[in-house]
């Protein structure tokens, strides 16, 4: 049983997810959706929109996974592991809280990574532009998108997981999803109200909202705008990274092992 000494909780969580089977549905769905959804559009009248529509569908699927399957599995996993006493058992066996949290996190991040990989795959296989310089720009853009997507999703999944260990899985699922929703749509909805206000308080409130809309590079793919300029990509990544670090610290504080 040597193999179980390294990261036992990770192995347990992964095998628990694999036997459930919905993860295979998620992976199959990513490719299927990217293939079928563009065919429903009136692409016959303008075939050159078909390829960008494939890329768009692939990333849209990734975001939908981040709104539904991924955080729900994370919260359910955290909830299950604590309820069944597995966390307490491992804690007593000498694993630290940080290690337990990271093991569970890694078992969810793997699926997030696979979803990203499938989106990148769809963008590069189904929708790579023919001209070599355009293809190069497309590749850079897709990699940038993958980085900002992962910077957004990893901490949110960690938050779902940690909340799952202290409360019911539905609540733990709704909090990161709500945060993602605010980050996506709150910016443009609250912008005119808060961002344009004279009051510094309202403005700073608006700035303190999560800014996940920065990670949505779909328009650049769909309208073939080319990659983000390097400096704004770095700024976006740093903002998302620091925000993510903050959420991760909160998640570690919330993580509970006692059943």
């Amino acid at each position, binding site marked *: 049983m040597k193999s179980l000494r390294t990261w036992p909780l990770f192995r347990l969580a992964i095998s628990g997810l694999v036997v459930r089977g919905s993860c295979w549905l998620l992976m199959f769905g990513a490719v299927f959706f990217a293939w079928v959804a563009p065919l429903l*559009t009136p692409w016959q*009248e303008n075939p050159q929109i078909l390829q960008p*529509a494939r890329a768009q569908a692939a990333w849209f699927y990734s975001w939908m996974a981040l709104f539904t399957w991924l955080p729900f599995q994370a919260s359910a996993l955290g909830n299950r592991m604590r309820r069944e006493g597995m966390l307490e058992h491992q804690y007593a066996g000498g694993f630290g809280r940080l290690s337990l949290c990271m093991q569970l996190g890694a078992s969810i991040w793997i699926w997030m990574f696979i979803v990203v990989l499938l989106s990148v795959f769809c963008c590069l296989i189904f929708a790579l532009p023919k001209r070599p310089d355009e293809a190069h720009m497309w590749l850079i853009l897709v990699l940038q998108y993958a980085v900002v997507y992962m910077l957004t999703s990893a901490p949110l999944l960690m938050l779902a997981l940690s909340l799952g260990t202290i409360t019911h899985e539905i609540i733990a699922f709704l909090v990161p999803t709500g945060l993602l929703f605010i980050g996506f749509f709150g910016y443009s909805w609250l912008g005119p109200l808060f961002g344009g206000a004279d009051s510094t308080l309202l403005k700073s409130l608006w700035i303190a909202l999560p800014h996940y809309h920065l990670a949505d590079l779909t*328009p650049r*793919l769909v309208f073939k705008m080319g990659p983000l300029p390097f400096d704004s990509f770095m700024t976006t990544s740093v*903002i998302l990274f620091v925000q993510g670090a903050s959420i991760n610290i909160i998640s570690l*504080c919330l993580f509970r092992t006692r059943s």
Partner: protein
Amino acid sequence: MSFSHTLINWAVAGGLWWGSHLIFCFQTSADDPRPSAAFAIAGSAYGSLAARLIRDSLHSYWHGGESYSKIGGETHESSRESPKFTLRSAHAKQAHELSKKMSFSGGLWIDSIVNVVDQLEKKRTKRASNLPLSNAHHRFLDAVADVRLRFAYELDPGDPTLYEILHFHIVSRSDSSVAAQVAAEMLAQKAITYALHDQAGLSAALTGAGAAINLLNIRLQHGPTASHDPLIKYDIQHLEQCLVKYATLHANAQNEGWWAKISDIRRKEIEDHAQMLSRIYDMIKKTVSRGASR
């Protein structure tokens, strides 16, 4: 973990959260107030699909709730005359004739059942009340149709029908003619820019041509004396560019073989529209040259 450690962690997390947003303060370009549409639905292939789906409900709001008020002239007259949906109605008429042909040719029992369902669906939205709608209700329906129309146009700026309806709507419904003219001109410029975009398709090119014609109509209202206006030359140039773009795309479509994949009704609709636009273009050219020679 002791309480003080937890407190420190929360403080660090809060500090990081604020710190990440302080980066915004050093970035002057980051505070771009333009709200971006999530997932780039508007203007993409899915936007086009969504706009087509909205069109039916838009049509029913426009005709006071009746989805089939004008088809084939067999149903009773709509309570309001609305010439705005001529293109859509023509399309619907063709589709209706086609379905009629299909449903009576076989004479199988399944066709009669299909017919019954079809009739029931028509009766579902048929007006039974003879009482006129109140003014407030009319205004409500107009407002709802207006919102849907603008939304549908945002989703698919390359749809000629939606553009023409929106143009007509802006020009006819507005209180002040100057403001309406400005709004219509802005809309037309947007449509032209969209039509000359790299990824624009056949319909978008025709929309741009229609927009250029609308602009010329606005400018030529003041009589042929205005035809020396450099703006008119500019608009004619745009019109030509859009028509050339359409012709190039059409030729490409035939060479590359995707023209045949478009449905018959849609193909005929596109060609009829293109013919109409080029006829109008010839007329405008004659008018302008007459005005210039005078």
